[in-house]
């Protein structure tokens, strides 16, 4: 359990290291630890998807991916350390000084997040969807394969289910269970639940910072009220409920990380819609969202459209619409691929056709 709890900060540190590969190229003034963690979350999953898909579509074992990804993480961490150690050192000294000046703020934010974490991580929840999502991780680990067996029953599937093929978020869970020996239930229901919750709150913090400036008490209050709303905005369909009970489902991350993240980026774009960095960030989030859940392929373009249209009108800029369209291309491609699969145009088998298993 202790190792499990320790993995939450380990995840965040890993995202920070991955994110630094992008944000570390910025000036010291623009470099932000929280934004780096958020970027890193999406960079991490974008990079993970590449070896995962290659190995999965070649019917190779999960252990291969685990070993390869372990090595890749090591290499990426070393590269990031070499490239960014100076900016990290400078920034951590700066942030330590800021936190010392605003102790009450730091303590209040930590308390707000920790209290909620303790409550949700200690609770037992029965949800039907876990029978698929968590069991998928357990099944992949048990069989040393990826998405080849039906998580509900354990029976062999003759083709990959397209809804979950490109959304490799659960396979990352399985890889970490393989690498650490942690049980999938502990990984999905405690470690990733905690990690996702913290990331979600980092996004609230960033949004509050954009809206309130440096009024720390207002930021703390907004985080507090966001917690209250989440704990009371409950039906089985609300994103709040998904965040507090079902983070092992990628779609929960769409509702609680990706959509707020897109809103955050549009708040930044509202200040400067010509800034290429913000558009690249939006593209990264859109691309990363496709790896978290198939639901992103419709939800993310819709969110970008809803936010992009008023921005384009207000700024009288066609380029905003073009940029929005470019950002959601990964979602649209996968959406069309899914339609093609549903219409029976193609299928990815779990065994090569020449072996005659299907």
């Amino acid at each position, binding site marked *: 359990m202790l190792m499990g709890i320790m993995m939450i900060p380990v995840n965040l540190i890993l995202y920070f290291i991955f994110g630094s590969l992008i944000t570390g190229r910025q000036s010291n003034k623009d470099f932000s630890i929280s934004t780096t963690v958020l970027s890193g979350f999406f960079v991490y999953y974008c990079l993970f998807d590449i070896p995962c898909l290659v190995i999965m579509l070649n*019917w190779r074992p999960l252990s291969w991916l685990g070993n390869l990804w372990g090595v890749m993480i090591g290499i990426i961490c070393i590269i990031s350390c070499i490239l960014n150690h100076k900016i990290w050192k400078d920034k951590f000294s700066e942030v330590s000084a800021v936190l010392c000046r605003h102790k009450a703020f730091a303590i209040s934010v930590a308390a707000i997040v920790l209290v909620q974490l303790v409550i949700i991580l200690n609770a037992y929840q029965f949800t039907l969807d876990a029978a698929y999502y968590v069991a998928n991780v357990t099944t992949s680990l048990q069989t040393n*394969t990826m998405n080849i067996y039906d998580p*509900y029953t354990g029976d062999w599937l003759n083709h990959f289910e397209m809804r979950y093929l490109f959304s490799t978020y659960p396979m990352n869970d399985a890889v970490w269970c393989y690498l650490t020996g942690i049980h999938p*239930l502990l990984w999905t229901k405690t470690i990733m639940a905690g990690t996702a919750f913290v990331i979600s709150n980092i996004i609230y913090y960033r949004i509050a910072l954009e809206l309130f400036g440096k009024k720390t008490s*207002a930021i703390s209050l907004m985080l507090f009220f966001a917690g209250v709303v989440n704990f*009371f905005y409950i039906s089985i*369909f609300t994103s709040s409920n998904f965040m507090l009970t079902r983070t092992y489902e990628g779609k929960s991350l769409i509702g609680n990380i990706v959509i707020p993240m897109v809103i955050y980026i549009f708040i930044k774009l509202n200040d400067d819609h010509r800034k290429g960095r913000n558009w690249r960030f939006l593209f990264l989030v859109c691309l990363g969202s496709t790896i978290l859940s198939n639901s992103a392929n419709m939800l993310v373009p819709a969110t970008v459209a809803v936010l992009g249209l008023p921005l384009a009108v207000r700024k009288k800029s066609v380029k905003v619409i073009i940029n929005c369209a470019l950002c959601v291309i990964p979602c649209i491609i996968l959406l069309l691929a899914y339609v093609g699969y549903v219409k029976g145009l193609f299928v990815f088998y779990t065994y090569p056709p020449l072996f005659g298993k299907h």
Partner: protein
Amino acid sequence: MQTLTVAESGFLYIFKCIGYYSGGCLYLLFYVAALLFILLKGSEKEKAVFFWPGIVTLLTVFNPVTPVVINTLFDINKEYYRFLWIAPVTLVLSYLAAKFVIQKETIGEKIVLTAAFCMILAGSGVYLYSSGYTKAANIYKMPEEVLQVANIIHNDSDHEYPRAVCDYNMNMELRQYDASIMLTVDREAYINAVAGKITDDMLAYDENPVNRILGVIVMGRQIPKSDFIKAMDDSNTEYIVLDHYSSMQYYLEKAGLKKIGETGTRVVYKYTSNNTEVFTLPDYSEVWKQQKFLSLWQN
């Protein structure tokens, strides 16, 4: 939203969807009220960030025509509620509440207003643990009985992948903990049985053995024991896990199943047959040998 369809509800679908989505919460109404407030009293930035996107959201996502149109392209019935996540209810409400509080001058006023907002939010919402807070029994966040049942089955079985049918909750949780136990019934089939969708005709004539097993253990139907045993054979089911209070225990014993273990509220039965095909994982080594690209890397 399993029961709500665009085909049946038409333009009313969105209103029913919002009703299901909100449950007992008034927060969507608060969100609309917050947008109105921002329109009337908000700054230019607030309007740009929340109001105009909010209006576009209301005109599109919450538009009765939208789900009808999308449903002609994709089956959106069960998933449309996810579009409602686009409305940033949590962000808007928490932002405005914080803004009102910090505008107050004295600490006392701030505390009173914070408490007032908390009461309003709590009173007009549904608490996550309104039906009680259940502390997880272990690090797996699984009832202890799931672990015990898995142990009983593995201790009894002489092969790696035994196959079982369990009561509803156990069936949904067992493979999350132990994926080496195969389950005969998947989620949809089980939900159909619980909803009473297995008819007499299906029990009598259906070739699907799963329906017969569900008919017995979920619906308590006393079908001919030979039919039940054939279903157990056809589906290669070796274990049945029932609630202690299930009235079908006597039926199972009469059908030849043997009780092999008990936990606090569950009984585990074993069916022994010479016809059971033991599940083994397909062997991919031949595939790997004949593949060029990754085989080179493997070597």
